[in-house]
Every structure is written in structure tokens, then in C-alpha cells.
């Protein structure tokens, strides 16, 4: 697979991650959006891409959105009501769909919880989608959220068939 562009969050000079409308309480979704924007912005000037680009979004995370899951669990356990925004925020698809809608990425959306090395597993999924013919490119996002509340870190890689950088 050839790396078309790559970005990380954070990179030198980054401060706090910008918020994303519709996503609350956790930095999981904002970091996904920030790192995807950074990567895609290095390959394409501005969104959206032309229709029919068949760019897949492959989101790989072992932790998932721990902060949101913990909030929901604690709220439910205490007999409370969770906020309605958590309904869609509770699955990684939603922020993947946010990125897809913002950039016009109309390939498949796939979320994995890695059983092996995350980047290798995500790259293998991207390669399969391209080889199988459902995608022409793939945006791979790797994100982990620490249990202690430290800011999330992420890598985004735009991949296409081929070798090298």
C-alpha cells in the first residue's frame, strides 16, 4: 500500500483539540476529526472530494471512546438519564461518518478493535477493501484514549494501491 498522506494528533505546536458540533464530553471524536482533517488536507486542499472517489474510512481503536462509555455506564448505574447526543456518539461509526460526510468519502466505513498490531491490521483491512473492489483509497485512522483522562492520540493515513511514499 502506498502512503498518500499522513498526519498525527498532536503534532508540534498543537494546543487543545477543537470541538466538533454534536459530540460532547470526550475528546475521542474531536481528535478523529482533527487528525483526519490534517491527513486529508495534506492530500487534498479542501473538502469535499468529488463524488465517486470511493475512499473508505477504516477506524481502528482498542479503547474506543472510553470517556463516553464510562459516562453512560455511570449515569445508567445511578438510575439517571443519558443525554441524547450520546445515542449516536456511543459507536465509532458516527465520527467516521462525520469525516466521510465532511470530505465526501463515499467508500465503505469499517471500524475494528484490533487483535494484533493496530496499524498492520488497519492496513490489511484497507488493502482488502481496495483489492476486493469496494474502495479506491482508504483513510485509516488509529486512535486510542487512555484510561486516565490524558488527551487522546491519533494517526491518520491515506492509503492507495502501490508501494512507497
Amino acid at each position: 500500500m502506498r502512503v498518500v498522506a499522513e498526519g498525527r494528533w498532536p503534532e508540534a505546536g498543537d494546543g487543545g483539540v477543537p470541538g466538533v458540533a454534536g459530540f460532547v464530553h470526550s475528546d475521542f471524536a474531536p481528535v478523529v476529526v482533527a487528525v483526519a482533517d490534517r491527513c486529508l488536507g495534506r492530500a487534498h486542499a479542501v473538502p469535499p472530494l468529488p463524488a465517486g472517489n470511493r475512499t473508505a474510512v477504516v477506524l481502528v481503536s482498542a479503547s474506543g471512546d472510553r470517556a463516553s462509555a464510562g459516562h453512560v455506564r455511570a449515569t445508567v448505574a445511578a438510575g439517571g438519564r443519558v443525554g441524547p447526543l450520546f445515542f449516536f456518539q456511543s459507536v465509532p461509526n458516527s465520527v467516521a461518518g462525520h469525516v466521510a460526510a465532511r470530505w465526501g468519502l463515499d467508500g465503505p466505513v469499517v471500524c475494528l478493535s484490533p487483535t494484533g498490531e493496530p496499524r498492520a491490521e488497519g492496513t490489511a483491512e484497507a488493502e482488502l477493501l481496495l483489492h476486493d473492489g469496494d474502495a479506491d483509497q482508504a483513510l485509516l485512522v488509529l486512535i486510542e484514549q487512555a484510561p486516565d483522562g490524558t488527551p487522546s492520540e491519533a494517526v491518520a493515513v491515506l492509503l492507495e494501491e502501490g508501494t512507497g511514499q
Partner: protein
Amino acid sequence: MAEREHPRITGVHALSALGRGGDALLAGVLAGTPAFAPVRRFDTAGRRVAVAATLPEAGALAEELADAIDAACRAAGLDRAGRADSALFLATHGGPRSLPDPAVAGPDAPPDGGPSDRVAGGPAVSGAGASPGVDGGPPALAGHLSRRGGLGGRTRVYTTACVSASTAVADAAALIARGDLDRVVVAAGYLVEPDQYALFDAGRAFAADGAVRPFSAGRQGLLLGDGVAAVVLESAAAVRHRGATPVATVAGWGRAGDAYHPCQPDPRGRGLARAVAAALGRAGLPAEAVGYVNANATGTPYSDASEAAALRLALGDLAGRVPVSSTKSVHGHALEASGLLELVVTVLALRHGKLPVNAGWLGPDESCPLDVITQAPRPLATAHALTLNAAFGGANTALLVGAP
């Protein structure tokens, strides 16, 4: 060596509120009697809606998944060596309640006498009771299930919400078709639990009238349901080599995105239509080959209309003549497991030549101009059926199932 023949399905198993096993599932969807009832598994005080389709005797999710994997492997006639060659693709939401529960889990001996690996008390999932407690999480569950089932191949875990299981099947079929793998056991599970229930209630996604009415006038929303399923997929060569009898083929598959909205489907249905087109294209079949569509339809007003638009885009005028039903109207929405539960429904319907009923019908809705099976099961007219799924994020899948 690339596999040119379609991957085979050689064993299936499913649990839902309709009962345990494929016979109970088929009988339930053909009878068309919804399994929804007041939730007794946990406290629903303060929720707007308190109805779901649950199986009262269901055990812990890990136990039910292990049982489903074993039952599907037995149905496929897999011996110990056959299991050892098998990969496991797992579709689940994960999280603490998905993990083996020491208080509920039974003896952890594998069915064939292989080495025991009692994860329930082991360090890999020691955070199971913590909050948020996903340390180890779904990958640890996959490892546990793989060892317990004697499955020696690679493991993968799909967390793609309501297309998790169908994406796992598509990927398994693609890897088998490419010659990378000979056999994959796809397993998926969701048992109705308080956290997701609270989220769907907060999102006002539930049908307040306690009925799921896909494509119908007056539909109000979805209801959750238990679903645990396992399916054995194999290359045609592997099936021949061990003299097994397939129950169905995966003739085609497709995955595509809407690029429309974080949690609403494209009203024009373009992503799902492209998934259907991809599935037909891989099968090398025209739309006329489709004799039944097991729809994703959840009973939600805008998403059912979007699916109808997708079928119109993908099948043209045939969309109004192909029999369609959503069996979520009977067994409920099993979230990450829905794609596999509905694949099992489709396989069994195809084998028995009878098409399930779309329960909850009040009358036609002009935004869903489809031939919905509303009264009684119909006979199947062709050898192929589609099963469709869609999820938040605009993720869509189509699986084309064929007679063996």
C-alpha cells in the same frame, strides 16, 4: 490460488427471543408473531419505552457466543482439525458486559477436550467490572472464544455498529475468494442490556407503541432484540475436500458509504444502492435473480424510506415487485449482531423456500413503494436473496445469498 467459486456456508446457529437454534428462528419469522414484551432483564424505570424482544433464559453473552460457535461448527461437521484451521471474525459492541462473567460463566472446557483457557478469572479481562473497563475488551473476548472453540486461525473484531456482522461476512467471503483463508467462523452477539437501552431511549429511537412496523404507514421506530449467531464460511474446495454439505453460498457482497451524515442515512439511498450493485456485480447476476430482500428496515420513518429509495435505485422497477420483509419486526434489532441473525434468517428461508412475514403492518406508505410480505409467508421464486444492513456513519452492506 484465487478461489473462483463462491464461498459456501456450511453451518449456522442463532439465538433470539424466538428461541434457541435455527428451527426456532425460522418458525418464529414465518409465524410473524412479534416477540416484544416488557423488559424484565433490568430496571427500565424512567425510560420512555420499556419493551424489547429478549430470551428469558439467555446466559452471559460470552457463554452464548461460545455456544453458538460450537453449534455452528457442529452443524458444519467440523472436527478438531477443521476447527484448528478456522479463523474467527467477531462482531460485538464490546465493553464490560460483553466479557465472560465469572458469576455466570460455566466450566470453560473446550468442546473437543482441548486445552482449557478460563479467561473469566484471568488477568486479560480483570477490568471487566471496572468503569469504563474495556481493558482487554472485545479482542480478549475474541481470543477467549477462539481458544474455547478450538479455532486456531486469526481473529478479527468488528465494531462497525449495525453493519459489524455483515461487514465481517463480506470480509470473510473476500478473503476466502482471494484464497487467503479456507474457513472463517463469523460470530456476532448482542443481548439487550441497560446501557444501549438507555442510549436508544434517550435518542427517542424506540417505537412508543411497542411494535416495529417496517415500511408501514404509522411506523414509530425500532425496538431492540437479543441476537447471538454464528456462521461457518468455507471455500468450495475446502468443502469438497472434507466431503461436507453446504447449506448456502455467499454469491455476492458489497459495502459502501453514504458520505452524508454522522447518523442519518442518505434519503436517496445512494450508498446502500451501490452496496447492492456491488453484491450483484460480484455474483455476476442481474437484478432479476433476486427473489427476496431481507431488509434492514428498523421501523424508523426516514431510514425505511431511504432503504426503499436505495432498492429503487439498485433494482429499478423490479423494486416494486421483489418480495421484501424486515424480520426485525419479529425478533427486534440486534445491533452489531443484526447482520448475522438476518443472514441466518435468509439462509433458512432460502433452504425452506418460504419467505418471512413483515409484522406490524398497518398499511402502505407512499415513501416505501415495495412489495412487502404482510400477511403470510410466500413461496420463494428464485434461488437468490439479498440481506441488507445499514448503520450510523452511513455504512451499508449487502449480502447476496444463493442456494447451494
